[in-house]
């Protein structure tokens, strides 16, 4: 409010100066007189009255918003790309069937679909599409565009990592231009998110999908139904987008948006400080610099991710799949040390989470007890307490389980086994490297012998998915709004070399709960919640992961623009309303 009052006063001052400098004909004088009236109201009254008397002037037009990305986009096609740099660009060009509320993360009818209904058996979804949505070349955005896009994903000629999105879709039917019927082959409560990819303009591609992989549209999209239209892509430098005058929520006020490629994190912060870029996802160590700068604002939110230490429960020398070819459970070769629950409990109690969060994550984290983050409110189990830091208890647990240091070398043994484990993380992520050193220190102090190594990311992913490691520090980000994380725990995803159940977690009850939680008829959150709360309790007790911290995101942005209202699930959701300050 102070700012508004200030800008009105400034306007008055400028108007007065203009008036004094050059006497003009009547209409200008009138405008100035109006402004005077408004200003006097503002200075004398409270907020509500200002709203009532707000000048109906159109928002300021113009200005270019500048974002930065650590890597260049690779391909501007929403069904072919799998990297965040590309989606940062094409998400502003291609429309979506369904929207996500920027604050609650709920699925909302804010995009192509203005309403939808689902059949009683939960398999058939009927979407009614809005009729006021146009491609920037004048064509209508309709049900055929959606059908084309999703049929393309399934087409053999199309190489895409998005094939999984169409796995459970039995058929897609465009009943008419504005009615779409999607039939799933089985009830999957997070199935709607499979429909969340950007939609292509079908009129710009060959009907038989033969040019999807090679179309010039992949590098220079010529039509947009999002807030911005593609203008230019200077590889490894920047992508320029300009205002879409036909955007269905109204043309943006800004002239355009440029996403620069700035690979170095330090250079990105420098550019935010100098105003060369307008927004930056801050790393914890960059937060203070941004907070101390009066030209910047910081938006802080609990992210949909967490950092953890994966504890391999199977023998890294003999990785086995969870199920055989016929779908029968395969007896695992247990990890000689980590299959012992006592060891896992000792590790969970040996870590000083407060120190880790404060010193390593510089306060940008919060203790987490299990695999669902509080951002997914309805499924989060707040009754479970995170493991407490208690080295004596940790040592006692090890003693009781028979792990003792009989030869006085500082490392515990049990029979022929020494309590010696390797711990890996990806080099270059300084937070994880610091965490690794701390974990090594804290575990060594209670009689472990930890061999910590930071290795190149691709190599680490290979070892992790190959299940040839003991412990790995890593994190999940972008877990989304649904608590279903079956890929981490179910037996069918314990496939060495590829599956994401790379800790070889095997628990029949969790398997069952994950399956049932996803197919609750009607998918009402209240009915699904008990499944996920029980899963969290079991995961907490079994400790396949040591949950180190939930992640807190920080976005630093310049104060040059009005109207920015970031939510945890979207920063750009109201980009068309942003205005450059005068």
């Amino acid at each position: 409010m102070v700012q508004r009052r200030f800008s009105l006063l400034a306007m008055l001052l400028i108007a007065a100066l203009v008036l004094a400098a050059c006497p003009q004909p009547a209409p200008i004088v009138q405008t100035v007189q109006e402004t005077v009236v408004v200003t006097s109201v503002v200075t004398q009254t409270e907020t509500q009255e200002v709203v009532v008397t707000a000048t109906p002037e159109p928002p300021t037009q113009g200005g270019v918003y500048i974002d930065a990305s650590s890597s260049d986009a690779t391909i501007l096609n929403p069904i072919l790309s799998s990297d965040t740099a590309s989606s940062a660009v094409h998400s502003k060009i291609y429309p979506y069937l369904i929207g996500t509320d920027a604050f609650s993360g709920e699925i909302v009818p804010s995009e192509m679909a203005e309403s939808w209904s689902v059949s009683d058996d939960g398999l058939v979804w009927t979407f009614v599409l809005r009729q006021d949505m146009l491609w920037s070349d004048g064509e209508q955005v309709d049900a055929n565009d959606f059908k084309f896009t999703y049929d393309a994903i399934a087409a053999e000629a199309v190489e895409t990592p998005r094939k999984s999105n169409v796995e459970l879709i039995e058929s897609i039917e465009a009943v008419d231009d504005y009615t779409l019927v999607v039939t799933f082959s089985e009830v999957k409560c997070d199935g709607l998110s499979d429909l969340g990819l950007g939609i292509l303009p079908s009129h710009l591609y060959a009907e038989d999908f033969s040019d999807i992989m090679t179309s010039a549209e992949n590098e220079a999209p010529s039509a947009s139904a999002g807030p911005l239209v593609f203008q230019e892509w200077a590889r490894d430098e920047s992508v320029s987008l300009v205002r879409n005058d036909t955007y269905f929520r109204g043309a943006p006020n800004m002239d355009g948006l440029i996403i620069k490629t700035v690979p170095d994190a330090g250079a990105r912060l420098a550019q935010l400080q100098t105003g060369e870029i307008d927004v930056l996802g801050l790393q914890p160590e960059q937060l203070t610099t941004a907070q101390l700068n009066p030209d910047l604002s910081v938006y802080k939110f609990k992210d949909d991710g967490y950092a953890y230490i994966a504890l391999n429960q199977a023998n890294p020398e003999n990785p086995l799949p969870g199920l055989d070819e016929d779908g029968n459970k395969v007896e695992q070769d247990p990890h000689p040390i980590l299959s012992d629950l006592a060891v896992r409990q000792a590790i969970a109690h040996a870590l000083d989470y407060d120190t880790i969060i404060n010193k390593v994550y510089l306060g940008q984290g919060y203790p987490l007890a299990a695999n669902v983050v509080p951002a997914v409110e309805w499924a989060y189990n707040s009754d479970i307490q995170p493991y407490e830091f208690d080295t004596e208890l940790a040592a006692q647990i090890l003693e009781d389980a028979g792990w003792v240091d009989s030869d006085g070398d500082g490392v515990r043994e049990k029979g022929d086994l020494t309590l010696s484990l390797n711990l890996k993380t990806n080099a270059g992520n300084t937070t994880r490297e610091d965490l690794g050193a701390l974990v090594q220190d804290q575990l060594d102090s209670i009689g472990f012998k930890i061999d910590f190594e930071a290795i190149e990311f691709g190599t680490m992913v290979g070892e992790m998915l190959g299940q040839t490691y003991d412990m790995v520090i890593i994190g999940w980000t972008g877990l989304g709004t649904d608590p279903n994380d079956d890929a981490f725990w179910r037996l069918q995803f314990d496939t060495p070399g590829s599956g994401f159940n790379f800790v070889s977690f095997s628990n029949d009850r969790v398997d069952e709960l994950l399956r049932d939680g996803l197919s609750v008829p009607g998918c009402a959150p209240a009915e699904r919640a008990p499944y996920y709360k029980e899963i969290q309790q079991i995961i907490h007790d079994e400790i396949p992961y040591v949950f180190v911290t939930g992640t807190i995101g920080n976005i630093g942005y310049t104060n040059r623009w009005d109207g920015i209202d970031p939510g945890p699930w979207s920063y750009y959701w109201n980009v068309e309303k942003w205005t450059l300050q005068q």
Partner: protein
Amino acid sequence: MFRYVFRRLLQAIPTLIGVSIISFFLVNSAPGDPILIRTFDPKITEETREILRRQLGLDQPIPIQYISWFTGYSLRPNNVVGEFQSDGVTCRFVALLNTTFCDSGGGIVRGNLGTSISTNQPVWERLVERMPATLELGVAALLASLLLGVPLGVLSAVYQGSIFDNIVRFMAVIFNALPAFWFGLMLIFLFGVVLGWLPTGGRQTVSLTSEFDLVDRLRHLILPTAILAFGGIAGISRFMRTETLEVIRTDYIRTAKAKGLAATSVWFIHALRNALIPLMTILGPSIAGVLTGAVITETIFSWPGMGRLTFSAAVQRDYPMVLGAVMFFSILTILGNLLSDILYGVVDPRVRLS
């Protein structure tokens, strides 16, 4: 002379084949999987990855993949695909060898460096895109290194043991030792953030109009050139100092001095010309270096050059891109060395190319 060049070029062929074999097997034996790194997402299934691997030919044994990359012919045991022609790929089953040969029309032997996995663009196109930026920075840095490094080295030798000499030598060690990623950030912080004199990175100020602005381009060039040139100046000045010291102890310099020639003409005409000859030998590889780019400097200063392109391709396991770049750089290095040998013959008549 032409016979010499021709022979050297012929010799380059086995070298390049060797490079192709070693680099192909090295890249493929490195841990990591190009498909997995692109699909590191629990929502993407293994079936999807299998399809991608098959489409990119990554499901084939490494030697078969090499043959396919090198010659453009992919081999499949038995008559698995039959005889057909589509999308420019011709396949033929050879019963005698019980193998199907598919000709994709590519292959580095035919000058086709392949297609980047990340962007679906031809590798050659991606390299060419980066060339102007790389050349711009590389040439600026090389010029700065020569224009400052040579005189500093000569003067350092002339005033051997003086304060000037000590300062130059001391600074040479310091600048050679400073890591670019740290020094670069310090310069960005000082000149970009604190003083606000220079832009903090990029090749030009981004705008929607993207007009060419020479002053703006030069302002962006200053800091990355400085970082690259500091190392170059340090190296060249030390090299020139040593060479000049050697030359000024020779008889003909003593004679020139004894004849009563002016000091400047002794140093800069007689001494410098002879000291410059060995510089040619280190310039050859530098010319290749100018074209291959500088990974760290390009990263810190958001410079869209070839070093960064290759580095990020390696991180993303974009095998065709990495291998294409390696082949391209090998050719440049071979040509750079050849050029420096030829130049050596030109400036030093005693050296005969044969």
